[in-house]
């Protein structure tokens, strides 16, 4: 039997998280154990994710690394994992961000045992969703993330807003997932196939009417987690309230989980519904892009800028989905990866700045580049990705999206480009005001350089976005092979 590599990747963090909770909390050297275990798990998962990514056969396409076992045969539920070209990229991105989350939280003082344990649960949840080929199992892992998210925000978050932000985020996301759950059950009973197997359900051939009724519910339910307007307001509040590693995971990976599930369940199972409603998604997503960018522009809080930039960038992913054509979907897939890494990098650096300056007010920051050049360079790189500069992964992602949307609605492309221009403006403004200029009086003597682990994290994330940007062939063919399958379901091209 082949080594069950995906299951291993999903359950390793889960088991490690449980082991962590079982370890005694009060020993002197125990913190080293906690973070050591988390680090090992993070590295092992990343290595496996790389193995899966590079051994995925793009020439064959389709779902690979399949593993299947009966779970609840009465209801047609099975444990069924596998990856296609799109999810293999998501799994890799998830593993990268989980590992960087561990590295960035290396020196956490408050209850490290619980922190790393919940972080690993979150990792298990996202990897589980990305590789689920069973609808029940997808929800199982999806909702597994509820309590780690909440507890991590309220226990280690920003004291002033953590209770509000954590509760808001958790309720929004749970609301989305419950609504989507009802839709998923309707899909199950509507298909008459008595199976939760996504591959079977793809072929169920739902009536057009059924698809039109249920598509909005399922899509919006998941897209709440993707930050779709007008259900996006949890994102900035939640991201700002969360501790650095959790912001990285939430904005970097969890938002992709939402978008990914919206694609996998809503668009792929109900393609006619998607065609019928694509104009609405396009409209909402365009508001996301422009409105998110405009709000980011006027923020005075460093972290809120990045929080709203996530809303804006996720809008591009959703625009890509709504085009329902090859370029748009390819771009959306690339953007999910690119934004995941980029926003993790952003939040990591915001966290480093806050840890030193103890303020996130842009007006009281400045001149940090001299003291923490690595962070400055990393931020600029993330900013360039975010603006869609050629040579960085953002360009490879955003260009196809705009090519795709031009074919279906040129005016959206024009408005969307406006969003990119605003993005450029606020990124440049923030870079100038935070990293250049003079160090304010209040910060003199407080700012030290970042640790070598932080530098490792920044370099790792930066190198990935540059590598993808310079060599799109590393990723585009893989994602394309996943998109091909979606296009077949959409019935054309």
């Amino acid at each position, binding site marked *: 039997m082949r080594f069950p590599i995906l299951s291993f990747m999903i359950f390793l963090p889960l088991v490690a998280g449980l082991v962590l909770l079982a370890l005694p909390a009060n020993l002197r050297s125990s913190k080293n154990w906690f973070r050591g275990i988390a680090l090992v798990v993070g590295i092992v998962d990343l290595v496996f994710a790389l193995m899966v990514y590079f051994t995925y056969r793009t020439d064959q396409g389709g779902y690979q690394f399949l593993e299947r076992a009966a*779970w609840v045969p009465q209801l047609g539920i099975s444990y069924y994992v596998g990856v296609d070209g799109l999810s293999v990229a998501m799994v890799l991105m998830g593993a990268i961000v989980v590992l960087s989350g561990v590295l960035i939280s290396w020196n956490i003082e408050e209850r490290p045992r619980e922190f790393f344990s919940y972080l690993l649960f979150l990792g298990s949840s996202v990897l589980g969703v990305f590789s689920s080929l069973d609808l029940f199992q997808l*929800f199982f892992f999806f909702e597994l993330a509820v309590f780690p998210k909440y507890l991590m925000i309220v226990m280690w978050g920003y004291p002033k807003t953590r209770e509000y932000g954590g509760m808001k985020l958790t309720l929004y996301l*749970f609301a989305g997932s419950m*609504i989507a759950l*009802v839709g998923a*059950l309707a899909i199950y*009973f509507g298909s008459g196939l008595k199976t939760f197997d996504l591959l079977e359900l793809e072929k169920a051939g739902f009536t057009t009417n059924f698809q039109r009724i249920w598509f909005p519910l399922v899509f919006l339910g998941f897209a709440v987690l993707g930050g779709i307007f007008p259900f996006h307001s949890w994102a900035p509040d939640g991201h700002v309230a969360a501790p650095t590693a959790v912001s990285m995971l939430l904005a970097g990976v969890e938002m992709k989980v939402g978008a990914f599930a919206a694609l996998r369940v809503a668009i792929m199972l109900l393609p006619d519904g998607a065609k019928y409603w694509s104009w609405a998604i396009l409209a909402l997503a365009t508001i996301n892009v422009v409105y998110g960018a405009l709000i980011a522009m006027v923020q005075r809080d460093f972290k809120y800028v990045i929080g709203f930039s996530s809303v804006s960038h996720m809008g591009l992913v959703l625009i890509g989905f709504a085009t329902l054509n090859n370029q748009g979907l390819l771009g959306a897939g690339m953007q999910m990866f690119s934004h995941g890494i980029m926003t993790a990098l952003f939040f990591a650096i915001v966290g480093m700045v806050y840890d030193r300056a103890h303020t996130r007010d842009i007006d009281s920051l400045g001149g940090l580049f001299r003291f923490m050049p690595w962070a400055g360079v990393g931020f600029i790189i993330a900013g360039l990705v975010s603006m869609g500069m050629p040579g960085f992964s953002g360009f490879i992602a955003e260009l196809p999206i705009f090519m795709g949307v031009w074919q279906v609605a040129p005016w959206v492309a024009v408005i969307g480009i406006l969003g990119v221009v605003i993005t450029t403006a606020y990124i440049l403004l923030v870079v100038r005001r935070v990293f250049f200029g003079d160090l304010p009086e209040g910060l003199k003597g407080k700012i030290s350089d970042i640790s070598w682990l932080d530098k490792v994290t920044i370099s790792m994330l930066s190198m990935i976005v540059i590598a993808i940007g310079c060599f799109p062939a590393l990723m585009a063919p893989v994602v394309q092979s996943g998109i091909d399958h979606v296009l077949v379901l959409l019935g054309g091209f």
Partner: protein
Amino acid sequence: MNIEIASTGRALVAILPEIGLVILAGLVLAVDLIWRSHPCRFLGTLTVIGLLVILGLGLAFSRPGPEPQFIWGQVMRLDQAGFIFRLLFLSGALLTVLFTTESEFLCQRGEFFALLLISTFGMCLLALSADLIMVYLAFETTSIPLYVLAGFLVMNNKSVESGIKYMLFGAVTSTVMLFGFSWIYGFTGTTNMYQLAEKLHIGAISPSLMGAVILLVIVGFGFKISSVPFHFWAPDVYEGAPSSVAGFLSTASKAAGFVVLIRVLLVAFPQVSTAWSVLVAVLSAASMLIGNFLALSQKNIKRLLAYSSIAQAGYILIGVASDSILGNSAAIYYLIAYLFTNLAAFAVVGVVGKALGSDELDAYAGLSRRNPGMALVLMSTMLSLAGIPFFGGFVGKLLVFGAAIQANLTWLAILGAVNSILALYYYLVVLKVIYLYRSPNDQQPLSFSFPWKVGLVVCVIAMVVLGTVIAPWLSWSSLAGAAFSIY
């Protein structure tokens, strides 16, 4: 319909667990009288051992055959539903006893355990009854000991109030129910549910009268399951009663109400199922909404759990309203998961309440520092109640929503989903208090005794197993769900 009447020997074996319960109750009382100065743990241990023996006997000998059997002159029907609910009640009683074994005041009282056993005896009979008179007798056998148990702490005004309130409500609702039964007898000349269905089938009674009968009957069951609008007793009774009794009330007693509700509706009134399905759906919607909304602002954890249990009754009623095998199985699965979950929750409440002398939510601040294990158990119960994966509650919710959608009650499924969101709020507030908030004395450890640990570990394992290894338990529930009646 297949009516098969067993021989006396077979009939005696079939009610072996019930016989065992009565003997055990007598034994506990007698031992308590003879040996006055027994150590605290003694009576509880005796009861636990006795219940384990009874559980074993029930599993080994009192299994129903492939076909349901009528026993004792058709007042009882041994089928999968009765069998599984009996096991459920016995497990509930077992855990409740474990959680009282070390309780200083209760452990000296033989009558406490005896009453608990008699009440369990009544529940088991309720699950088996096939005759309305048997239903009523079993109903009272279940309730009367519970009135006493709720008011057991005679030095505590709240407990006494709780007992009296529970008794008044119980007396009124069971009288109304009995009135409904008398109507049924008057119309049909029989009290046997399974013959009733045939008599009512001819169309002798006008639909409106039938509706009135169903309404009268549902009052009694609605009280037992604490569904809106018969829920007013629940918060006060749970708050005043000893925590372990409150746990028992909210789980085993509720399950007993459900089994008889499902049986009476399905068996006696199959031809008006569309009507009662709507009625149950309305009760379900009202229970979920009112339970959850009132729970949002509770500051006392026992009251919070009481309102949560009203809302949980609403979710379970979704399964009943669906009127299908899947619906019944879903309700039963939910009840099983809920039993272990809520018993564990009340057990933790009992420990903390005893140690800190308070059931206010504020007293739980810093619990995760005082005793991480206990905090973890409480977190598991809250997550299971909220329907988060890895715990049985998730599967239960999924199944009831699924049943509703299958039965074209999509509005009810959506309402249930919306209510889960509401409910998550107050469950998360509990988590926030135990994990985030500090109390001045949170370095002071809080310990719990051995039987408590055993009970809690059993509950948590049960919750996780119900939430992950789903298939076998679902088969059980489906067997039980299909056994009530003819589909």
